[in-house]
């Protein structure tokens, strides 16, 4: 492609000119060959460039593939949520900057909802920070409170960003796996447990925090009060922080209850609880999240926030606030979206489980969240000829995408280096999908055995 070239000639001053693309490329090549390009990345991001999502979302972008991989709903958000956004965008002032630490009407709504859930007073201005998704809350928390010399305990499998974020803060991740303890036939997420003694051994004087994720991605485990107490006891004993990622807090199924570790004795003062609009209202593309905790911790997150992106989107925050008010008023009503979404997802969960079981697989039935993991080694798909140094589940998913047109995410993406072997026979399916998507998955799974040679 040629561009018009202009040249300016001024006495004694260097000229500049727009060159043809061909010429500029050749000059660039020779320039970069001679210029010792010393502009490397900083140490803090060394080795943090690869990312499972970049690899797998590209592959699954093909519309002919039934995408049960990345965790995003293909169901519509509730209509009142969209309406509130339209209303907000129509107000001139709401298209301009709002309060940096969180739009007033939103932090007020959040404080009301969570005061009710937690049974304690939450100050909207000092105890809450609104961030760009729960992701932004995790980043703000870790940047604010974690540094070189610290250790952070991460429970495996883990939402993949925990490890690079801890490393970017200069700290050391210390992993502890959930272990499967069940002799029975129908595995449940509750069967994946921490070994208390093993957990206790991971704590030392360098431990700054433990990251808890309940309901858990990818397994769907909902930690019980007793399990949370074990963690809480250790946090108190070692005076550590607890970073509690509770984005799936409303998505718990029959018989289970989501418990906030911050409500256990001695825990409010050392816990940052993280939530997500994307998961609460099926609007992952809104990228709004929040951190809730005591003022003396939140104030440090606020400092990070004011030095990273300062404010979040105004119209989205206003719309979210209005949606929260609508549901806050009906928190005693089964029609509240927090409960109705959960019910809707429970039937999708049951359907997904059935489809997998009918294909001869043993899915781990999740007590919460919208993911389901399944051991695929029983299918005996031989991938030894695939010449790639990747764990089995990576190879399996890539093979499944190409040959079965069904996508999932390999579980070893969610593990530290030592446990990859343990988890490489599992893959993760996302079931917050509309019926037609699950129908298409059903067809593929039903025909699976027919096509396998």
């Amino acid at each position, binding site marked *: 492609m040629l561009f018009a070239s202009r040249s300016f000639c001024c006495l004694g001053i260097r000229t500049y000119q727009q060159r043809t693309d061909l010429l500029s490329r050749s000059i660039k090549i020779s320039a970069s060959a001679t210029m010792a390009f010393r502009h490397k990345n900083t*140490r803090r991001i060394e080795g943090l460039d690869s990312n499972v999502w970049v690899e797998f979302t590209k592959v699954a972008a093909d519309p002919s593939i039934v995408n049960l991989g990345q965790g995003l709903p293909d169901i519509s958000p509730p209509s009142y949520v969209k309406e509130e956004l339209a209303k907000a965008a129509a107000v001139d002032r709401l298209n301009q900057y709002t309060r940096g630490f969180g739009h007033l009407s939103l932090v007020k709504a959040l404080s009301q909802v969570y005061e009710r859930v937690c049974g304690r007073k939450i100050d909207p201005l000092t105890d809450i920070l609104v961030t760009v998704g729960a992701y932004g809350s995790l980043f703000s928390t870790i940047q604010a409170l974690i540094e070189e010399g610290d250790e952070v305990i991460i429970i495996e499998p883990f939402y993949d*960003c925990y490890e690079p974020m801890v490393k970017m803060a200069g700290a050391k991740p210390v992993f502890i796996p959930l272990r499967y303890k069940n002799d029975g036939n129908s595995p449940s997420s509750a069967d994946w447990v921490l070994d208390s003694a093993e957990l206790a051994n991971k704590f030392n004087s*360098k431990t700054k925090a433990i990251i808890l994720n309940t309901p858990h991605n990818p397994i769907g485990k909902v930690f019980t009060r007793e399990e949370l107490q074990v963690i809480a006891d250790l946090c108190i004993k070692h005076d550590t922080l607890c970073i509690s990622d509770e984005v799936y807090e409303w998505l718990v199924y029959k018989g289970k209850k989501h418990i906030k570790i911050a409500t256990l004795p001695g825990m409010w003062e050392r816990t940052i609880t993280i939530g997500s609009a994307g998961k609460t209202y099926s609007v992952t593309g809104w990228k709004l999240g929040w951190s809730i905790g005591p003022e003396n911790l939140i104030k440090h997150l606020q*400092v990070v926030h004011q030095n990273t992106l300062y404010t979040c989107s105004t119209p989205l925050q206003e719309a979210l606030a209005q949606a929260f008010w609508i549901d806050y008023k009906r928190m005693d009503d089964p029609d509240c979206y927090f409960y109705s979404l959960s019910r809707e997802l429970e039937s999708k969960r049951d359907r997904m489980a059935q489809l997998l079981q009918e294909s001869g697989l043993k899915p781990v039935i999740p007590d919460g969240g919208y993911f389901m993991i399944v051991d695929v080694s029983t299918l005996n798909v031989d991938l030894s000829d695939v010449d790639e140094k990747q764990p089995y589940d990576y190879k399996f998913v890539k093979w499944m995408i190409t040959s079965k047109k069904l996508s999932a995410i390999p579980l070893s993406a969610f593990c530290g280096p030592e446990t990859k072997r343990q988890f490489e026979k599992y893959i993760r399916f996302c079931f917050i999908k509309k019926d037609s998507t699950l129908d298409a998955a059903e067809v593929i799974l039903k025909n699976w055995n027919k096509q396998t040679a």
Partner: protein
Amino acid sequence: MLRRAGPSLRHFLLERKSSAGYSSYTSEAKMSRPLQARRLEGIDKNIWVEFVKLAATYATVNLGQGFPDFPPPDFLKEAFVRALSGENHMLHQYTRAFGHPPLVKILAQFFGKLLGRDLDPMTNVMVTVGAYQALFCCFQAFVDEGDEVIIIEPFFDCYEPMVKMAGGTPVFVPLRPKAPKDGKLMSSADWQLDPAELASKFSERTKAIVLNSPNNPLGKVFSQGELELIADLCEKHDILCISDEVYEWLVYDGKEHIRIASLRGMWDRTVMIGSAGKTFSATGWKVGWTVGPNRLLQHLRTVHQNSAYHCATIAQEAVAQGFQREIELYGKPDSYFVQLPKELQQKRDWLVQSLDAVGMKPIIPEGTYFLVADISEFKSDVPEVPDSDEPYDYRFAKWMVKNKGLAAIPLSAFYCGAHKNNYNHFIRFCFAKEEATLKAANDILQKWKREKTSP
């Protein structure tokens, strides 16, 4: 820092006191160990927290914080509504992390045209949460402990804490005002870098220079000669240029905004930053972008994917449509990029007149929607306080908003701590305001002048 393995005595006492359970805990219960990371040292203060609150409490006319009080253009608002309510409800879900494809494609096309380059939307463009986050990604990606970053004063205040948070050392070099010709008002063009002084700031530890043109707060639009001076030094010392060009469309009096990345030798070492908020008068949407060579942007992508990851989809979709309209109307009278500066120039001239009429000496900005005025003649209203550690202009601005209801920002807010008293008799006004607002400001100023001159 001392780290203790066990709980503090205070914690034990609190635990024993409580009988009914968690809700009886006092709010004073705290962790005993030191908490915040060292990277937060010295970056907790922020002028906006204080001044936004003051404006919210006292201001009847707010010319302080930089945002328009008029709406974004209709075509943009309509695009937003179309995106959120259209058949494709997947626009409410995650999009591509490094930028919504329609947006990066149009940005690559648009800026490619302006730079005379073939840009790849996937590798030469990255979308961020406002230009603010773009700046953050640049510092985190390229500034390590011990690196020096040159910042031209006065500067948009976040550059300094961001450099510090990355472990870097900010090195400041001031724009120095030259006296205007007799009888004329000063222009932002009269504030200039001393070439020898600038050159002296470069050392072998210098990693980058931050350029902001058009400049907030002065409104200076760097000339080709000035940019070449900077470019020469960048090349000579092999350093990066972080080019904050958020006000790129707001240039007046027929001036041209020159992109330093288009100068010879600069594309490979420059990250260009832009903002939908400033481009389309929608600061609350928080959509920004970076444009640059892949070997620099790849590192911005690493920071971005480990900090915010995705940016909100709907606003990106709407901004893409906004740019689509603008690329078709580029250079034509209907283009928003032609109309907006035209309107703002009128408002600038109006405010210049208002201020001049009452004895505040405006420095006529060549660009942006900010204007700095010299308040020396008004100093008597807010007397000097000896031994005060607050610069005069801070006290003046606070007094003015409380007593006159007019909000503006002290210029010393845009200087590093050591230099805050170098230029402490100037305040910054934002004129991206409706006519009624500017008229109201004028009324306040006129009344104030009358009160000053009447016995």
